[in-house]
């Protein structure tokens, strides 16, 4: 094995050799940098540092082994640097008896060295080896790196189950190493090895389409399934912004309410008390004197107060514009009942009723009033009061709900995304770091535990 000369800037040189096991041709792309080379024909792992390419291990590959999604030899640009895919391995962990496998691609640039891409269920990570050690907290619940806190997500024993191409380390199929992942989306820091001796790497989440574009691959990347450990939430950054906007809108609503309540006329334009004799004797309807509604087109609030006692009165109203003949026709009932039974005293209804007539233009108006009630119930005294241009609190309430609803849905979806993320962790829930999600999960957990006790 000889080198092809010093590597120049650009892509690595390619050298062809033969496998000492089966004689098949080997393509070496990172010559001088690879530690092991795998023969694709007989699946022998060869010592690339040995001039005779000593066979280190031979393994059996499954007939239906998944081929690399990025074919070895493919060249692509990651963060402005040209790399060539030179190695591929599948690693597998066992969690509760279920195997989970992901793929790792070794990328090589003669100047920048090695870089890695990992892929699991359509989720990709751009991985590079850390140059300095992260600050691991005593409980290993989190670590700090460059001022950022990474929460522990999962620790598992990962076994190498398939290899292809070239590797800058002594790779072996079946070799197992403990892998711990700490996440701070969109980044993940992974430690491989023992607590005393570990290799630390940092991955940054990439969408499949970015990988496809970087390597100019045909077709579509496999669709991402589920939520990955360091997948950035598509809503996370928006939630804070939306709640900030919501605060601004609520403050604006409050200011508007103060403004409308302070400038509203809220003017009493009519107030009369009438007596209704329930004894049937001819026409009960009558009209009031004319009163003036001033100002712009606005509402009119009509209040009916009746001295009913275990009785009701229903009044047909017509607010009629004397000049145009345009009428607003409506009816209001005032009923009030009370009594005493085995449950104690009770009341039902009210002696007062309010109704708002919308968008009444200014002008001269009168009311046509037609009271009704059960016959022979004596005389009912009732008062009719009209107010012009009364602010309606209901619209402000509806506006608050209308603003809260999308913000709440967005927050719920964001929390659900984080919940799905952490459901795949060793803990099955978010870390107890005071975040909204952890608070919600703690509350849900306390409800569940109290329910279990019952």
């Amino acid at each position, binding site marked *: 094995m000889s080198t092809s000369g010093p590597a120049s800037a650009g892509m690595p040189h390619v050298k062809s050799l033969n496998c000492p096991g089966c004689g098949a041709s080997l393509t070496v792309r990172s010559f001088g940098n690879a530690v092991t080379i795998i023969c694709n024909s007989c699946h022998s792992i060869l010592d690339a540092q040995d001039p005779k390419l000593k066979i280190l291990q031979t393994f059996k590959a499954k007939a239906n082994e998944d081929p690399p999604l990025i074919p070895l030899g493919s060249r692509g640009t990651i963060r402005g640097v040209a790399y060539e895919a030179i190695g591929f391995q599948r690693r597998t962990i066992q969690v509760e008896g279920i195997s989970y496998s992901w793929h790792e691609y070794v990328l090589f640039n003669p100047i920048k060295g090695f870089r890695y891409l990992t892929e699991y269920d359509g989720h990709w990570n751009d991985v590079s080896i850390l140059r300095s050690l992260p600050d691991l907290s005593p409980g290993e619940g989190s670590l700090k790196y460059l001022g950022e806190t990474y929460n522990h997500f999962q620790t598992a024993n990962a076994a190498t189950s398939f290899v292809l191409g070239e590797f800058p380390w002594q790779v072996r199929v079946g070799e197992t190493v403990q892998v711990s992942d700490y996440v701070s989306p969109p980044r993940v820091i992974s430690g491989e090895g023992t607590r005393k001796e570990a290799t630390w790497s940092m991955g940054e989440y990439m969408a499949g389409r970015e990988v496809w574009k970087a390597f100019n691959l045909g077709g579509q990347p496999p669709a991402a399934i589920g939520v990955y450990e360091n997948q950035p939430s598509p809503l996370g950054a*928006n939630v804070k*912004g*939306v709640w900030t*906007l*919501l605060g*601004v*809108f609520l403050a*604006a*609503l409050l200011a*508007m309410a103060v403004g*409308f309540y302070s400038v509203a006329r809220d003017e009493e334009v009519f107030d009369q008390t009438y007596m209704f004799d329930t004894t049937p004797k001819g*026409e009960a*309807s*009558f*009209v009031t004197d004319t009163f003036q509604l001033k100002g*712009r*087109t*606005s*509402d*009119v609030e009509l209040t009916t107060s009746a001295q009913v006692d*275990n009785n*009701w009165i*229903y009044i*047909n109203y*017509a607010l*009629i514009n*004397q000049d145009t*003949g*345009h*009428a*607003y*026709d*409506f*009816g209001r*009932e005032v*009923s009030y009942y009370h*009594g005493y*039974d085995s449950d104690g005293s*009770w009341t*039902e*209804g009210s002696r007062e009723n309010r109704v*708002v*007539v*919308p*968008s009444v233009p200014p002008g001269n108006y*009168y009311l*046509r009033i*037609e009271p009704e009630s*059960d016959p022979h119930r004596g005389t009912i005294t009732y008062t009719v009061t009209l107010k012009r*241009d009364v*602010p*309606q609190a*209901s*619209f402000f309430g*509806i*506006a608050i709900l*209308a*603003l809260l609803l999308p*913000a709440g849905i*967005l927050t719920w979806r964001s929390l659900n995304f984080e919940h799905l993320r952490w459901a795949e962790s060793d803990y099955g829930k978010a870390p107890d770091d005071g975040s909204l999600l952890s608070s919600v999960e703690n509350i849900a957990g306390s409800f569940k535990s109290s329910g279990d006790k019952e």
Partner: protein
Amino acid sequence: MIRRLFLFYGLAVLAAVSFAEYRGWSLNRMDEVPNVPRSVRDNPGSYRSVYGFYHHYTGGK
């Protein structure tokens, strides 16, 4: 994108509330009757209310 959408949505909500308050809208259902004859003033019984046949609740437990 979502923040921008919410910004426009929120502004639309504020505008709708302002307009509703300014125009004196109401959540109450109201029937409008055009051209009520002037004679109603002298003969209130000639007016036929939309709610004249309302079924009254007689209340109580």
